[in-house]
């Protein structure tokens, strides 16, 4: 606390004022210095790459040959991750923003933040060494599961309507996120128990052989599907957090108006809340894509790292980030390989920076819109 007797005489002392000005100047200089240092990353990459690129030391043909498979792999990994993560994240965001009780929601958010904090190397290890061989053995079961889980949830909804009202209150939709967990677990166990029988019935006993014979699809142990699930797991929480913010930020009077006119919560969501929040959800998906494109360890450990160019979910790929991590320590500074990897890093930087800036701009516009919507009525 400031002591009163110091205050009376203080402002007249010229030394104090000079000291204050000096210190403020130092803070400004330091602050600007730090910010410039952080921004220097982009400048450094440009300085390393551009002279070589336009000074004729690198032929465009070489660049194209080296970078196309890596760029392809990066986008493919991100695509499969988003296919897995976006529905999951948006579903979770919608449920927790609109259906959950306040209490449950305040527990749910930190839990999913934990999921975000899970280090990539651990997720990559589990995906590459545990999940990949296991899925290879249980491919039919896993693919069936992707069908069974949504259908199982709908089945639960159908059964729920037949329940006596006491039970219905106890197992309310607001708490469905919790009590569906054992149900899903049960479904998964049942699926894996039945899958070998199903595989024998439909695919002549071995799905992988069938895929190869009928569709010409190779199955690699570490493939895009594994990467998609693992990286989807890693980026899902950040999409969830941003989308949830956007959804719960929609001024409540909009939703209340729709409720008053007789809409269910889901109808309100589709006709009122979702259109209002759609830019925020778009921003969330963009930021998720940015993270998926730059994630290194998961792709490195779960993808098999072969530079293939195919869209098949059952084949591996090599991404830019993984390529840099593996090859850059061995590349001689200034050599062609070094410059190529620097170029890959520059591309990653530019891509993520642009995507994030776009998302940030969209979000700040959205905030303004909410304020306007909230204050207009």
């Amino acid at each position, binding site marked *: 606390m*400031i002591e009163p007797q110091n*205050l009376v005489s203080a402002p007249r002392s010229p030394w104090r004022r000079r000291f*204050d000005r000096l*210190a*403020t100047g130092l*803070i*400004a200089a*330091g*602050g*600007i210095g*730090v*910010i410039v240092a*952080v921004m*220097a*990353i982009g400048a*450094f*990459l440009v300085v390393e790459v551009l002279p070589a690129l336009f000074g004729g030391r690198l032929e465009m043909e070489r660049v194209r040959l080296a970078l196309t498979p890596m760029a392809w792999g990066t986008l493919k990994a991100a695509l499969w991750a988003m296919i897995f993560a976006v529905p*999951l994240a948006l579903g*979770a965001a919608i*449920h927790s923003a609109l*259906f959950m009780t306040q209490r449950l929601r305040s527990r*749910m958010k930190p839990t999913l933040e*934990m999921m975000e*904090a*899970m*280090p*990539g190397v*651990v997720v990559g*290890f*589990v995906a*590459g060494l545990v999940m990949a061989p296991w899925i290879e*053995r249980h491919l039919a079961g896993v693919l069936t599961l992707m069908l069974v889980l*949504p259908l*199982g*949830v*709908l089945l639960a*909804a159908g059964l729920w*309507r037949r329940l006596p009202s006491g039970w219905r209150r106890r197992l309310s*939709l607001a708490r*469905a*996120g919790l009590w*569906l*967990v054992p149900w*899903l677990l049960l479904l998964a166990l049942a699926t894996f128990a039945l899958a070998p029988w199903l595989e024998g019935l439909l695919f002549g006993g071995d799905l992988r052989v069938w895929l190869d014979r009928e569709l010409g699809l190779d199955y690699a142990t570490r493939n895009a599907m594994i990467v998609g699930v693992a990286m989807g*797991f890693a980026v899902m929480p950040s999409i969830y957090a941003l989308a949830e913010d956007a959804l719960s930020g929609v001024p409540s009077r909009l939703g209340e108006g729709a409720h008053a006119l*007789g809409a269910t919560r*889901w109808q309100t969501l589709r006709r009122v809340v979702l259109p209002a929040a759609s830019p925020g959800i778009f921003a969330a998906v963009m*930021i998720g894509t940015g993270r998926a494109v*730059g*994630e*290194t*360890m998961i792709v*490195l*450990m779960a993808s098999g790292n072969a530079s293939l160019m195919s869209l098949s979910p059952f084949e591996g790929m090599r991404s830019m980030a993984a390529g*840099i991590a593996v090859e*850059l320590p061995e590349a001689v500074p200034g050599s062609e390989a070094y410059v190529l990897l*620097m170029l890959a*890093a520059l591309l990653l930087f530019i891509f993520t920076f642009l995507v*994030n*800036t776009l998302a940030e701009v969209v979000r700040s516009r959205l905030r303004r819109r909410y304020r306007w919507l909230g204050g207009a009525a």
Partner: protein
Amino acid sequence: MSRRLPRTEGPWAWLAAGSVALSLLLLGGLLLLLAVRGLGHFWPASVTLVELEDGRLLAGQAVRELPLKHRAGRERLYFTGNRDLDGHVWHWLPVDTIVASERPAELVVLERRRHGAFIGRLLAVGESDALLSAQSREAAWTGLEARLAELEALRDEHDRLRRDVLRPLIRRLDARPDDTAARQALAEANARVRELQQAMGGQAALLESVDGRRLVQPLDEVLRAWQPNAMSLGEKSGAWAQGVWRFLSEGPRDGNTAGGVWPAIFGTVLMVLLMSLLVTPFGVLAAVYLNEVAHQGRLTNLVRIAVRNLAGVPSIVYGVFGLGVFVYGIGGTLDDWFFSDALPSPTFGTGGLLWASLTLALLTLPVVIVATEEGLARIPVQQREGALALGATRLETLIRVVLPMAVPAMLTGVILAVARAAGEVAPLMLVGVAKLAPQIPVDGEFPFLHLDRKFMHLGYHIFDTAFHGNDVQAALPLVYATALLLVMVILVLNLTAIFLRHYFRSRHGVQPRP
């Protein structure tokens, strides 16, 4: 009203609920898997003696079971140890070829410095050249236990002597080769070390595998011994706790497939500590500048957005920057100026502790800046106005009023930064992590903290052991345990940050400045 109002929410609402359930299931499944496999490894599992159709005998710990590839039935994987006798440590056995299995109490498991585990029978313990006949089981076992305890004490003294007496003496002699007192002390210490080594050698155990092959095992190579089938639950729990402790406190052995992760824990903590020392002042400085000093205009807002975006730039890009600027740029220049006599082998011109901490500090700067700024923005402007009205200068307002109120926000930022840095591996692969660093970067040698050394890291240890080891199957349990350790550290850090943030928000129930 002609149409009845819909009473339920319809299928999509349920699917949304289902996705919450699925994410919780995935997260819980991952944590459970790590916990069970990571902690289960230290449990002294029972050893089964198996008799096969063809009369072969095998003893081992059952690990898992899979369906057979080419015919009906299942096969089981046994960890049988005895690499020096068999050449390998794993046996896949079709379950239907097993005719009998039992768990005799006399089977012992020895953990050895070389060749991994031994599983079989203990026949006798004694001087290596007088080991001919078998003793009674109890006598041999008590002899072994007594001798192992003795060895443990000797080994401790030996290590202490090397660390506290020999190394400082050698350093003194390096500095002044004509120091006769030191030379004499060194000779004495060396004699004592030789004495200890002699005391450790000499004794051996006569062992027999279950199929009757005998071998003489020098006891100074045996680290631990137990009879898992004869142990009670309490004894097993004790052995389990001891195993966990050894994992945390010892260094890796056998090409990272056995032993502990102490150097990796130490390296991770040291690197993160250095990083937070670097990132805290600079991050707070930048946040204070952005929020308190800079003119709040369009430009500041742009800078703010840019800093926020840098938090989303992939970590590997920071690694590339660290390699190009810190290692090759600054490190190379330092080598040219100060360490030119050591060239061409680089001192600072290669990855090391300093460059790794700097790179991670840069990587986490946006996190600290954003969190601190958020905290500063939450402080009501009346507080500042009040201080200024009472005659405080801007600096005094800042130091005495604003910053103390923003401390929890800064702490939150730093903890989040630490949590992120502890889990980040990709940039470290470029700027200084090592598969196996022989020396930890802190010792009694001047300048005590060796910023140029490479170091071990928990995250990289996971990657390297899981993907580059020569026996991944044997290393897997340790990888699980390491992963569990890393996850625990990060979760605890994150929980602390969440708690702090919650506490801060509830104490100052203030809306952020628009």
